[in-house]
């Protein structure tokens, strides 16, 4: 029989976590703060990684980690209710237990930003997997050149982590531009697609790093616009989303040409996936 230590690192075996707090972010989006159940411990992770969240008797889904990787006491994950499992996850109350596998996947290359300008571009819920990178970038702010966040979402009511963004903007140590697709007359900010903000960036384009996460079509246009202004393709990193099931590169559900998004991604370099982004899937 396997030892307990071996079982603990089996990537197919969920560990049990408990909901310590749940926060409603948007009408259909919740953030769960998870702590280890008795006798368990939470996994460490790097910004950009995800877990497989298992609701006993319901099913399992991949969920982005949206918290601070430096906080080992809690695992913070943001979930949008879009299907049977995610709806059930967002209904979990404080004290409820769930299974967790992982973390899985590649990380945002935060260290590549040292000595360079860093542009973070988020669309909609894509801000959630970027938030751990933003925590680290802000903590290591003195190592970076300019730090810019461009965030696009649907309407002013759909701005994720709004209070936190407002706080960061007040601290004046990074530039934050938020744009929405549609707004009423009371909105004083930008309206229009997030890619429209890219030509206005005042950065050292040849020496910049870009981290991009959002709907894939938005990422495709954002990466193209970044390259148009001079950011090298190899310096643009995207977080892709596919149908992750096993999360360890075995089942093939998330296969993208010769890569498995769960294992070789989700964070991937634009120059390596550019040609694949426009392909129709069979």
């Amino acid at each position, binding site marked *: 029989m396997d030892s307990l230590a071996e079982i603990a690192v089996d990537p197919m075996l969920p560990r049990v976590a408990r909901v310590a707090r749940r926060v409603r972010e948007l009408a*259909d989006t919740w953030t769960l703060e998870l702590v280890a159940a008795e006798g368990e411990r939470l996994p460490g992770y790097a910004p950009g990684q995800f877990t497989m969240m298992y609701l006993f008797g319901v099913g399992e889904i991949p969920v982005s980690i949206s918290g601070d990787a430096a906080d080992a006491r809690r695992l913070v994950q943001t979930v949008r209710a*879009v299907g049977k499992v995610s709806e059930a996850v967002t209904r979990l109350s404080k004290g409820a237990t769930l299974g967790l596998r992982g973390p899985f996947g590649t990380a945002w290359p935060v260290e590549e930003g040292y000595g360079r300008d860093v542009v973070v571009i988020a*669309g*909609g*819920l894509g801000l959630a997997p970027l938030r751990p990178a933003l925590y680290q970038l802000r903590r290591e702010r003195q190592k970076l050149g300019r730090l810019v966040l461009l965030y*696009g*979402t*649907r309407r002013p009511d*759909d701005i994720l982590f709004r209070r936190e963004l407002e706080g960061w903007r007040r601290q004046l140590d990074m530039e934050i531009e938020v*744009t929405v*697709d*549609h*707004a*009423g*007359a009371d*909105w*004083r*900010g*930008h*309206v*229009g*697609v997030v*890619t*429209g903000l890219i030509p*206005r960036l005042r950065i050292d384009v040849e020496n910049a790093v870009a981290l991009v996460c*959002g*709907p894939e*079509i*938005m990422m495709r*246009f954002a990466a193209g616009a970044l390259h148009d202004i001079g950011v090298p393709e190899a310096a643009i990193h995207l977080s892709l989303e596919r149908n992750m099931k096993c999360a360890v590169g075995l089942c093939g559900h998330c296969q993208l040409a010769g890569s498995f998004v769960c294992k070789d991604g989700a964070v991937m370099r634009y120059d390596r996936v550019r040609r694949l982004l426009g392909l129709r899937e069979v």
Partner: protein
Amino acid sequence: MEGLERIVAEHPLFVGLGPAFITLAAGCAKNTRFDPDQYLFHAEDAADWVYLVRHGRVALEMVTPGRGAVTFDTINEGDIVGLTWLLPPYRWGHDARATELVRAIALDARCLRDKCEADHDLGYALMKRFLPVLVQRLQATRLQMLDVYGQPG
């Protein structure tokens, strides 16, 4: 170069345009400003001016029954407000409202059209500068129409 010519020449839309063309375009220009919530123009008005924004932000709006004014785009410093001055029937299709103090160069559209008609080289040079703006906004509109942040499926 005179003050207004210099300002026109420095606007991103006209950077690199030959001095003779700048003089022609600046001959149709005047400085203007709009206070917060003041309208630059309304839908269905004659498209008699095109605005080169030097400072501030302009919201492009349409009034929708039951929803009031809906902003579908904002125009910032260095960009232009108004593209329908280029083509008949020269009427605005939306409202344009300053959301903060806006300083702009207003180009008399009729004057500009007449000069483009008289000097096709100027017309072609301007067309090459306005057309990319039009295409960029068309592509942005397509992306907006896809509603990529909405519920999947």
